[in-house]
């Protein structure tokens, strides 16, 4: 039931996107698009990861989908891209790895006089930090990419009449 798994994943990503978006007070008309983008991005990452692609690369592709999607949908609701893609990216934050950074730091400090345990937590701390930082950076960078490629369109998303395309 691979399809059902994807749909479930997309659904929960959409709910998470809406909720985390709500904290930052987005325009009400943007909610459906935030949900759509969050679902698409996370489902994409889920698919790629179940085909054995690592979390960083998969997140990058998810971020790209969200970035280009927000460029495309932003024109419809006259929202800047960031309004749509920041809430949509939040469900992809690697929270479990981030938690393990804190966890291993605490355990490292608790096990200072036990060399084997200490080394284990030390290693855990660094591997989790690397994964978390890489994923977050790739997410932000890949979703921002469309702004640089389609500068003109990205800068005039909130413009209502589009007769002359200057400035």
């Amino acid at each position, binding site marked *: 039931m691979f399809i059902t798994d994807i749909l479930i*994943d997309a659904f929960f990503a959409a709910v998470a996107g809406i*909720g985390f978006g709500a904290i930052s007070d987005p325009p009400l008309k943007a909610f459906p698009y935030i949900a759509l983008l969050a679902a698409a991005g996370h489902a994409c990452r889920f698919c790629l990861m179940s085909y054995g692609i690592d979390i960083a690369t998969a997140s990058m592709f998810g971020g790209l989908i969200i970035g280009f999607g927000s460029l495309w949908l932003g024109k419809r609701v006259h929202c800047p891209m960031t309004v749509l893609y920041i809430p949509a990216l939040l469900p992809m934050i690697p929270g479990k790895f981030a938690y393990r950074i804190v966890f291993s730091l605490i355990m490292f400090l608790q096990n200072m006089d036990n060399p084997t345990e200490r080394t284990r937590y030390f290693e855990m701390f660094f591997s989790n930090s690397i994964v978390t930082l890489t994923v977050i950076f790739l997410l932000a960078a890949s979703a921002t990419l469309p702004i640089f490629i389609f500068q003109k369109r990205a800068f005039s998303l909130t413009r209502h009449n589009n007769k002359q395309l200057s400035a």
Partner: protein
Amino acid sequence: MRRDESLQSIAKFIAEYAAHMMGCGVHTSRVVRSAKRIGDAYETDVNISVFQRNIILTLKENNSDKIHSEVVDIPALPISFEHNAELSALSWNIYDNNLSLADAWKLYNKIVNAPSIDSLFVLILVGFANASFCKLFGGDWFSMTIVFSATITGMFLKQQMQRKHFNHYIIFIVCAFIASLCASTAYLFDTTSEIALATSVLYLVPGVPLINGVIDIVEGYTLTGFARLVNALMLVLCIAIGLSLTLVLVKDNLIIN
């Protein structure tokens, strides 16, 4: 065309506009672009330098030597995408429709004073969001319930403390501690407790400044970008402190999968 507007009043408007946009979490290049666009509409040349807490801007009239400078403080506002979108649209509106300064002020005040999203609505949505997050990480239904309740408790506390204007860092430490303490009760049961504990504090993650910081840096506004990143990382650090308070309390029960 717009000779009736004095340079000073235009500068006042643009300064207020730019400071509000920076305060409510818009990335720097958009603020600069929008401000220049408004200046363009009033036939002035706007030059802006943006710092973390102040904006310095200089306006020069296109056909004369008149120059006016203005320095404003950036207010610490709650992040608002609605303001971001509406104020960006306002700059285009001014540019395209030749609005007078009085009309621009009227529209600006209308946008800024519109009600922000209802706190109870946010509270419940955030609860659902964090519970779904738990599911995305592979938590079971019971963990989701625990995370939901823990998030609602923590988020409610955050809203109340923000209303009473507590220090940001204190709010984040206390809320992360309370939420993770509530979630740590999952260890009483045979469930995906590690995931419950890990997700319970994620509603606090300052996603907007983090991503804005990266955007600013990539776009060349390294100074504001770094300032934003440092601010966001301080908040993340506070979350970590709150979470580790709980972890130290329950460390004997922790299991690593």
